[in-house]
């Protein structure tokens, strides 16, 4: 019987060797001087190939000796988080003993999906001065401190006329959507009054 896992592994390694090649040392930096590349590895050394965004390791990390590891924002994650993200379940993520893996797993599942789960606690809901809905919610059991996100709607329409939702992680002591959104812009809730948002 063929060992399909072994074949897949050797084929991926061959792909890395052919596509990028190990070394000479190549480092791609962003404007802040941090390792960053959106569409390929940002770090290629004589022994390793690594992917980074804004200085944080993500994606795949291949080495000359055949190991292929998976990372997301610098956190080593189980391979199926990357290869089959649609199969990742919240219960499985929350059972992981590593808080960083739990945090990443939550992002892999998707915050839109997590927000709708019965285990997610809605802390506050409102409508901003431009008529757009905001939701502040808490995802339990990720860290010892509460993990809070505020959902906001983009002010600018997509080409198809719809408006995209955005999720911003905010400090655990936030009580209202206004306070959370103001914090993301270095403001206190009582002073946050933008006259225009685009």
């Amino acid at each position, binding site marked *: 019987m063929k060992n399909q896992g072994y074949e897949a592994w050797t084929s991926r390694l061959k792909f890395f060797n052919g596509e990028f090649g190990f070394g000479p040392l190549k480092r791609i930096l962003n404007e802040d001087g941090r390792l960053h590349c959106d569409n390929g590895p940002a770090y290629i050394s004589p022994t390793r190939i690594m992917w980074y965004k804004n200085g944080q390791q993500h994606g795949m990390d291949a080495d000359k000796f055949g190991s292929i590891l998976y990372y997301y924002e610098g956190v080593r994650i189980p391979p199926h988080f990357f290869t089959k993200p649609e199969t990742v379940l919240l219960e499985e993520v929350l059972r992981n003993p590593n808080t960083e893996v739990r945090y990443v797993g939550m992002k892999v599942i998707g915050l839109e999906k997590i927000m709708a789960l019965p285990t997610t606690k809605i802390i506050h809901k409102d409508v901003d001065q431009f008529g757009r809905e905001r939701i502040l919610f808490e995802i339990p059991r990720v860290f010892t401190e509460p993990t809070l996100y505020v959902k906001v709607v983009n002010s600018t329409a997509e080409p198809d006329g719809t408006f995209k939702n955005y999720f911003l992680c905010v*400090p655990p002591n936030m009580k209202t959507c206004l306070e959370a959104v103001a914090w*993301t*812009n270095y*403001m206190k809730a009582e002073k946050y009054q*933008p*006259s225009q*948002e*685009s």
Partner: protein
Amino acid sequence: MKNFQSRQGDIFFKTVAKPKDLKEMKKHESRILAFGEVTGHSHAIKAGPEVESYVNVKGDIYLFSKEETVVGHDEHSDIRLPANSWVCVTRQREYDPLSAERERKVAD
């Protein structure tokens, strides 16, 4: 000082008093206020009046112009900054439980 606040995508503009530490800041020579690394689009001052521009160590930009200044972006409507006012330009942040600073700038 006229109270003005406005947001264009992940960039926030607000009028402030003239910064006291202006001499410690660097001159910001570019008309680009923020570059979207993910989208490739920039928030930039459109051609027009002369604008004094400084940047502090945190990357916040302070602008001053005697005339109204227009900031454009490919995907967002223009923002008109008031004349004769100092305007502080900041990039939106989010809480980051995994970093030592506990926050990071939002990636556009």
